[in-house]
């Protein structure tokens, strides 16, 4: 399984979609095409989420972002795009300056990404069927895309939003498993020692169960943020509706005469 090329193919497919869409949003001039490119990019990101094992987040991305937010944007485009086109060119100087700054930004980001060797290396993974049973956990190198074996993230996410962290319990089990086998050690030792390895709760530290529980009380889930965000969304809903229906008089616009109305019919853009 470790040599499977399929996740890699899919990754590059979705990654290229996401990046091409993003660049398209940046470079395209017509706002409708920009919306289309954004759609492609967000759908690609959803695909990336799927192959990273975050199926629920990917679906939320599809549903809320692609099916909701971009539709909203398209709605806005249709409402406002009628006379926004002419004379909107950003000067070439601004383009050049912007792209230069953007290139620098990208370079900094890439440097910071690639400067951390563990991020570039393949991580030791615990096969999912072995660990919770308390048996011998098999540690394999290489990325493990074992969708069938993974239990799915919906349940744990739901528990987490209710304030119960079930995933931490699993990981507690797995941390008790003999993870610090020689192979894993070897793998870790490949990475140069840096401050990341100095974390107190690194994998080599076998924790006392009671101590683990005490730690879990500190991060026992996301009930409060969930509630805050719910209230926040209600406020946003009300606020957006209020803003959109505010009583601002429409300026008297130069409308075509009836004669011209007949001639301009059929041209929506």
């Amino acid at each position, binding site marked *: 399984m470790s040599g499977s090329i399929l996740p890699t193919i899919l990754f590059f497919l979705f990654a290229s979609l996401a990046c091409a869409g993003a660049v398209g949003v940046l470079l395209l001039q017509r706002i409708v095409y920009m919306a289309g490119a954004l759609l492609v990019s967000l759908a690609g990101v959803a695909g990336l989420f799927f192959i990273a094992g975050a199926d629920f987040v990917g679906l939320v991305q599809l549903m809320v972002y692609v099916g909701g937010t971009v539709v909203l944007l398209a709605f806005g485009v249709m*409402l406002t795009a009628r006379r926004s086109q002419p004379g909107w060119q950003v000067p070439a100087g601004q383009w050049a300056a912007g792209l230069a700054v953007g290139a620098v930004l990208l370079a900094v980001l890439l440097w910071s990404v690639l400067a951390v060797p563990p991020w570039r290396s393949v991580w030791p993974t615990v096969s999912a069927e072995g660990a919770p049973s308390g048996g011998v956990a098999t540690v394999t190198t290489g990325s493990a895309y074992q969708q069938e074996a993974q239990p799915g993230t919906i349940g744990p996410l739901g528990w987490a939003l209710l304030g119960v962290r079930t995933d931490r319990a699993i990981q507690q089990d797995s941390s008790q498993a003999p993870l610090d086998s020689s192979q894993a050690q070897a793998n870790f030792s490949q990475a140069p020692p840096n401050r990341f390895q100095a974390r107190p709760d690194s994998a080599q530290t076998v924790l006392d169960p009671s101590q683990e529980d005490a730690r879990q009380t500190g991060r026992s889930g996301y009930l409060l943020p969930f509630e805050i965000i719910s209230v926040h969304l209600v406020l946003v809903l009300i606020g957006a509706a209020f803003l959109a*229906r505010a009583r601002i008089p429409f300026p008297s616009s130069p409308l*075509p*005469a*009836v004669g011209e109305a*007949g001639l301009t*019919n059929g041209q929506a853009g």
Partner: protein
Amino acid sequence: MDFRRRKSLWNISNQGSTRFIALPPEEFDLQTDEIVVNMGPQHPSTHGVLRLILRTDGEVVKQVQPEIGYLHRCAEKIGENLTVRQFTPYTDRLDYLAAMNMNLGWALCVEKLLGWQVPEKCRHLRVLMAELDRIASHLVAVGTYGLDLGSFTPFMYCFREREKILNLFEAVCGARLTYHYIVPGGVMADLPPGWLQECSRFLDQFPPTLADLHALLTTNYIFIRRTAGIGVLPLQTAISYGCTGPVLRASGLRWDLRRHGEPIYTQMYAPYDFQIVAPQEGQYPDDGISPAVPDEAVLGDCWHRFYVRMREIVQSVQIVRQAIRFYQEASGTVGEPMKIQQKLPVAEAYLETESPKGQLGFLIVGQGTPIPRRVRIRSGSFCNLSVLSELCRGCLVADVPAIVGSLDIVLGEVDR
């Protein structure tokens, strides 16, 4: 092209230009850009080649301006170049959905000018035909109104029944649309044998269809919500715009030329027993088949205009039943069609009759020759259409077909 527009009768601006009047903005609506959009002349629900210029803000219609004339065929001018007898088939083409009524109005006007009186049997036969055609016309109005609101099936039911009426007409005069049957001086031919039995059979099996229509449209909740309180036409406005027919009666005025018209017309209907369908304080007298008025309905709205037509169908069925009896009881002939070269006196006559769409008026100015000097047609659809921009102000785009359909215009009569 531009010249024609500037000369348009439908220049509704108060400043003498064809620009739209600046209206105060609606305060509580999502305002965005305003679009000027053409509804028609090729549009499914403008009932022909009517063109409506809508100024909309999203779904809200700020202003409607009807543009007419796409079906203008110089009917009046043709009438000034033909003898009155020769012009009779042209009246078929005015309101082609109620051609018998058009024939009748023209024939009566010519007879009024000439001072003729047709035999009693002919009068009853004319009433029979006119009321059958009123049923047919109202069936089209009702069915297409359902279609305007997105309900297709009542349309098929209405046309199924209308086909039966057209079959009857075809048996009488050989035509299914432009009959040229009622002519000055009488009718073209007496009824074929067995026709009255066929007609009675139709009248017997017809009322269940009305019950279906009431179930599918009149009392349907969606239909009520789409029509009740929409396009409310106050009585004063209706009168000042010259609205007539069901449109006027739905606003609450009990006014029907079959009872309130000139003697030459009312004497035809004098023996008949029927109600003038108009709501009195929002209620109608019981006619045995029509349902009660819903609470949402407002006097003069689209629902009442539709409902008045539905009830007039019932009344017309009643009249036709009586007409069959009177026709059988009457003796004598059915009249003699006038000669083509019949000379007209140097006089003028104007007569309005109650056509299904509204009051239809003909003016004939004779000049001593068979060809009149002037023919003028007062069309009910035309006057009813004039109130459209008043009704549509501030409504939604979806209400425009609902209001146009409730006015029940026929472009042949509007444009003449």
